[in-house]
């Protein structure tokens, strides 16, 4: 995975509360056993009119000034609902690199980090201010997410907090699995001790 230091791009201020992953990508759009090729299904239910592939002009992403958006803006409880990582893969496939929201659903948050998308939590008032500023001229007024510095630049700098591990994983583009496997001796030692403590689990029925 590519490392992330800072990104500047067009923001898409949807600002929706409780934006669920069914809306980010409907289940019927998850057609392949694959993490790529999902951009077309992104927001399909609200992006296309009448169930056909006709862009609905009422949806912000279909307007020319937002078409190149790479910073998604949502309200509270962003990415709630289904655990489908396809929601994040579809965002990444379209070109999104960061999501700004008031709060995140846990699974969606972790899926973002696992796929190089920066989840940025900001107070609602800050988000509303950024959204107003962006909407005046979306293509000119681009938003910068500076992960190393821990702030968003958009009509001023707005500091955000992110867990140190998530920050490091995103910046270095690390594979969490490889990182954990460095602790293999610890895991093996735990298993050994656990087998003595909870033998019932290791000897449990095997069907």
């Amino acid at each position, binding site marked *: 995975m590519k490392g992330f230091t800072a990104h500047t791009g067009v923001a898409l201020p949807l600002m929706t509360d409780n934006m669920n992953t069914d809306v980010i990508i409907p*289940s019927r759009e998850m057609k392949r*056993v694959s993490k790529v090729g999902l951009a077309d299904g992104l927001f399909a239910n609200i992006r296309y009119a009448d169930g056909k592939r006709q862009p609905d002009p009422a949806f912000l992403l279909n307007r020319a000034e937002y078409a190149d958006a790479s910073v998604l803006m949502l309200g509270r*409880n962003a990415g709630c*609902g289904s655990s489908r990582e396809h929601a994040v893969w579809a965002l990444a496939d379209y070109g999104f690199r960061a999501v700004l929201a008031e709060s995140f*659903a846990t*699974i969606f948050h972790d899926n973002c980090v696992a796929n190089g998308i920066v989840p940025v939590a900001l107070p609602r008032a800050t988000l509303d201010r950024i959204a107003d500023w962006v909407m005046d001229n979306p293509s000119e007024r681009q938003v910068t997410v500076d992960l190393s510095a821990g702030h968003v630049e958009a009509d001023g700098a707005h500091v955000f907090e992110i867990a140190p591990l998530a920050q490091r994983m995103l910046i270095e583009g690390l594979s969490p699995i490889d990182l954990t496997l460095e*602790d293999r001796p610890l895991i093996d030692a735990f298993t050994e001790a656990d087998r003595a403590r909870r033998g019932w689990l290791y000897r449990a029925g095997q069907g």
Partner: protein
Amino acid sequence: MGQTLYQKIRAAHEVRRFEDGSSLVYIDRIMLHERTGSIALSNMIDEGRGIMTPEMVFSTIDHIVDTRPGRPDGTRMPGGQVFLDEMRRTTGQLGLRLFGTDDPRQGIVHVIAPEQGIALPGITMVCPDSHTCTLGGLGALAWGIGSTDCEHALAARTLRIAGHRQMRIRLEGRRPGWLTAKDIIIHLICRFGAGFGAGHVIEFAGPVVEAMEVEERLTLCNMGVEFAAFTALVAPDRKTLDYVQGRAFAPRAEDVPEAEAQWLALTSDADAAFDRDIVVDVSEIAPTVSWGTSPEHATPVDGLLPGGPGLEAAYRYAGLEPGTPILGQPIDGAFIGSCTNSRLSDLRCAAALLRGRKVPDGVRAVCAPGSTAVKLAAEAEGLDAVFREAGFEWHEAGCAFCFYAGGETFPPGARVVSSTNRNFEGRQGPGVRTHIASPETVAWSAVNGRISDVREVLS
């Protein structure tokens, strides 16, 4: 200071503690289904990663498999066959257990996990499916993850989790006989908001929870994720232990005393501290149904629909008006199934209201038992005949009706009362208006052809 139930389970699984409060925790058992598991497994094969402990992995086919009676071994989702084929190929190649469509142990992951003794008190469990929190009803620390985390758990038998805040919701007061666990959890989400549990582990406790049957506790915890919680759980007690005993993947008879002694110690200490400690009097809760497009859009069945800012889109989708009653709204469909409410106890409660009654013409009613074992057990006691004679379709076990993947659905615009957990826009199909409710409310509404109050018949 004492420890909470969650802290005890977490501490017993901590392989490594990090400075930021996160921990690498040991994962005891993993469940997979074809919709998300197939991707994790094929990616692992592509990357040449091995599975650390294949015997702790349990897979099934539940999400998009056809549930029509006597189903063909396929899916009605256009292009969906590849998920079934990949699940069979990858589990075969990696030597994993698969409860396929020809296996009597097949069913919805969160239904078969307790049923087969895969979920146990005090263990850690994950599945790339958000409703894994259901298993907290047994006192397991179980949570839903994405595909990448699933690969992590498979490859390293561990996951790194953040430090969580803790919330206890104590349910007290007199519980009327007609009040279900489903009514209670929808009420809580409506009252406190769908984002209320963010960053928290929720422990459900108090005399009402202690008096609940185990399967009711599974329903309660199932919707923990609709509350935005990391997960939810209930302390195991004698009822839990009796429920678990003798199941296929549970401890062997000679190990039961030791296991039970450990499980009974899994309670929050009297002096344990919670970040939030809430008491709710259940005697004030009515049968509860959702009206809009988030589980927090709910109302007592005899209430008037709420007003307020930001609800316009939900009302537009639902085809309803604030200030009007939900009671008596004509329905087009009724569904009993899903990981929330499709266990044998749910089907019995619904059947009791369907016996001798008939769903009116124009209402399509469907029941999909949660597992093949539930279906067979229900048939053995004649429940299938009750459902069929009442006009319900009697389906095979699976998830398909709960979420639309291009296959099973109701027509656009249909108003459907459903024992499921999500009423998101389009969740059960384009334009379908889902009202989530208890199986009893679904059954009683189905035979009346309109959203109905179970107190008319159960009081």
